[in-house]
């Protein structure tokens, strides 16, 4: 048998169900591994203290899991990476975590993230950046950077994160793991601290596509506590497709070569060849409105965020500063000290976009673009089964490289934002390694596959077949598979 920590979550689960693996021993091994976090990936770990009582599982039968610190967990610190929620212990547990606990998956810890999920590098965390396990001078991506880093870095068998414009897929790509953003509504958002409510979606970050399927099966479902949730009809089965024959993969014609690095392009093109070798067909599709995706996204998401984050006012919970003067002074001091610069930037952007007299020009217009983008995908899916792109324009960049240039940072979401706006599922799987533009050791490159809404099963089946065909086995630390 493999080393305990080398088992995939699915393998461990099957071994536990078969009685070949002791759940206690397995979970203890992962607790020990998590305790060795040198990546600043965990904000809180279950060390068996009192806090953990609220998240105890009846029986361990599913691999323990790392949870992005955006999911409320009763009694357990939940900060969303923000100073304003420092010390906050929610009085209730999110639906996603509850489902994990009910399935028998103990929570290993809460992972670091960009503040309120706003960021593409994890440098916006109030608790310091997460380091990329492949190269500790580089970012793990964001905003679910902690969740991606723990899975890639051997600090957790698997994790959950959230994706608003790419926050699962891009860090999965940067860390060389699988990241799935399900269809909007597939998984309950109840207890998932809101960034942009019409876009936020919970999803798995895993080592393999099968693990992602297992986790999605646990998490998905209509939740009476989330009016926008619908679940996935028929649930999710483990993928077992061996080839891609009869499947058509659409490459957007608008995918110019300027948007992404040559190393990424090389891996992308190799992957297209691999698809053909597996019997799949490559076709060109047109997504003319996608180029406006970033603009629309950076109006809609901040607009919703400006409203979602208004509740952090120092009155009921979390941090409070000032208040010796009057109410307004307390609001201003609390929010000035509690929020980081990127959060403040987006609150201001969003407030402006919703203001009387500007609403139609910004929010109204952005919603029209959003509708167009969704229509583009509808059109594409009438011709092909999937749309494929690189997940991110580059491999993981260096810490501090883009912190002074928000627009360059925003462009990281170029390939992932259109699917978020359309509400459709998309998965990033590791497809190969490439040298960064400036040179240096090779880093993972993600390949993104998008499918029509609620076609998760088909998406996972195809991703699984491609994953087997690619047999990407590289691990951080130079072990080149």
């Amino acid at each position, binding site marked *: 048998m493999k080393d305990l920590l080398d088992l995939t979550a699915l393998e461990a689960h099957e071994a536990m169900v078969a009685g070949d693996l002791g759940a206690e021993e397995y979970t203890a091994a992962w607790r020990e591994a998590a305790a060795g976090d040198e990546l600043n990936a965990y904000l809180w770990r279950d060390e068996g203290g009192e806090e953990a009582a609220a998240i105890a599982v009846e029986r361990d039968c599913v691999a323990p899991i790392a949870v992005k610190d955006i999911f409320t967990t009763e009694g357990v610190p939940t900060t969303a990476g923000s100073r304003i929620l420092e010390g906050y212990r929610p009085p209730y547990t999110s639906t996603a975590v509850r489902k994990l606990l009910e399935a028998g998956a103990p929570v290993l810890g809460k992972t670091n993230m960009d503040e309120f999920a706003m960021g593409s590098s994890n440098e916006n965390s109030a608790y310091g950046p997460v380091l990329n396990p492949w190269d500790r001078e580089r970012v793990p991506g964001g905003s679910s950077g902690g969740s991606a880093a723990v899975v890639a870095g051997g600090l957790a068998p698997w994790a959950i994160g959230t994706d608003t414009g790419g926050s699962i897929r891009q860090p999965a790509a940067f860390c060389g793991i699988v990241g799935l953003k399900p269809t909007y509504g597939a998984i309950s958002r109840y207890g998932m601290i*809101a960034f942009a*409510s019409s876009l936020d979606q919970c999803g798995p970050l895993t080592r393999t596509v099968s693990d992602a399927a297992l986790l999605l099966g646990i998490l998905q479902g209509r939740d009476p506590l989330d009016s926008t949730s619908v679940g996935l009809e028929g649930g999710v089965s483990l993928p077992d497709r061996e080839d891609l024959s009869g499947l058509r993969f659409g490459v957007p014609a608008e995918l110019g070569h300027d948007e992404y690095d040559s190393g990424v392009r090389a891996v992308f093109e190799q992957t297209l060849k691999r698809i053909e070798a597996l019997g799949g067909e490559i076709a060109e599709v047109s997504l003319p409105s996608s180029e406006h995706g970033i603009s629309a996204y950076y109006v809609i998401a901040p607009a919703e965020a400006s409203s979602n984050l208004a509740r952090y006012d120092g009155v009921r919970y979390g941090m409070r500063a000032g208040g010796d003067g009057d109410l307004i002074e307390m609001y201003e001091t609390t929010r000035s000290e509690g929020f980081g610069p990127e959060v403040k930037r987006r609150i201001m952007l969003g407030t402006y976009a919703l203001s009387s007299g500007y609403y139609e020009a910004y929010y109204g217009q952005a919603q029209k673009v959003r509708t167009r983008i969704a229509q583009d995908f509808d059109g594409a899916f009438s011709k092909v089964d999937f749309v494929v792109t690189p997940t991110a324009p580059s491999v993981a960049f260096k810490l501090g490289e883009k912190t002074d240039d928000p627009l360059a940072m925003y462009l990281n979401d170029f390939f992932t934002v259109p699917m978020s706006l359309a509400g459709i599922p998309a998965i990033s799987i590791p497809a190969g390694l490439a040298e960064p533009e400036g040179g240096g050791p090779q880093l993972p490159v993600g390949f993104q596959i998008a499918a029509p809404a609620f076609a998760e099963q088909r998406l996972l089946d195809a991703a699984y077949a491609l994953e087997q065909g690619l047999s990407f086995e590289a691990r951080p630390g130079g072990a080149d598979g």
Partner: protein
Amino acid sequence: MADLEAVIGLEIHVQLATKTKMFCGCELSFGDEPNVHTCPICLAHPGVLPVPNEQAIRYALQIGAALNCEIAPRSIFHRKNYFYPDSPKAYQISQYDIPICGAGRLGEVRIHRAHLEEDAAKMIHVGESGRIHGSGASLVDFNRGGTPLVEIVTEPDLRGAAEAAEWARLLRETVRQLGVSDVNMEEGSLRVDANVSVRPAGSEELGTKTELKNMNSFRFLQRGVEAELARQRELVEAGGTVEQETLHFDPASGTLTSLRSKEEAHDYRYFPEPDLVPLAPTEEMLREAREALPELPVARATRYESMGLESDAAKLLAREPEVAAYFEATCAEAQGVDPRVVANWITGDLTAELRKRDHEEDFTNPTVPPAGVAQLAKLVAEKKISHGSGRKVLAVLVAEGGDPAEIVEREGLAQISDSGQLESIVEAAIAANPDAAEKIKAGNNKAVGAIIGFVMRETKGAADGGEVNRLLNEKLGS
């Protein structure tokens, strides 16, 4: 200068009497310990989501049906953003461009819209003034926060303060009879704001309006609107212009103070609530809302008018179901009596008697059952007693109860219409008032009062007035 016409529209907030709040499972309450009916959702903890209360939607549909509103097939919830401690999310979930109930009508007044929203928490400002300015601290009670509300907005169809108050009473009765709200103004389950403006009579354009808040009784509503109309008229007549502002009416002093001007108005940054899907009532919900409607005051008044009642009497009797039931029971007992006569007895003498005795318009548990009034009305209609005697009987009935016929007997009020008996009394009256008799003969009919007065004294009011007149005419040719 042309006369200035008042133009008034009302905005009415109705707290729905559901079991739980609009978007969470907390119980509704009034007067409980502060902050006991709260949960992560209505305290706006991070990550929570709203789930609409189905009963509140059904109640809103009933209100829409009662107000003859068009129901939107898909209405949208919006967020109304503002920072204040009474709003824990810092936005109120309300409806904006597509409310659940669109255009409608109640009586003479058109309804602009009616929409669903959630109530704010209650602020208590510690200190002498009870208002935020000058208070040492402010406390928030979240028990009320999230209570379902329907906000009803009228078109500016009202033309006076009294008319506004009268219509607001009709609306309250209508909503009360649906059973969807306590409609208690003192407790705040019914809150009325008024938009007030003036314009030259006959003009079609609307003047600049002010919004009056905090009128927690119909009397204060009327007084507040009167005060504001007087202020605007004086201002305009002196050549000034009305500024758009929100005003607070203090009933104790009768004064209006400005809460905020147009410049200080909030930008609520409305946008569609992404946590909720469009509200699409099913056919079953719409049907149930229509079928749940009892006969409401306006429909009942129309029915009474078709029975021959004057419009005012019909509306008065139709407004409260207890009064309406009393009226209808009385009509049923008083077979053969014109309903108009029954209506007159109830709206006139009976109401006056009840008021005198402090049973103010209490028709729920009346000292006189409908049968008593019916019997009385019949005795008068059949000329067994005079109208004046009838009023005396009614006074006794209200004071002591009993049987009208027995009271007539006991008090000797049976009408004397026997000509033989009356003739001798009339002759005695003429004899006792010779001057008056001469004047009547000379054509001065005013003098007849003295003679009739004599007859009525002699008969203790039991004489049939018509018969007395006939006899006088015969004898004096008057």
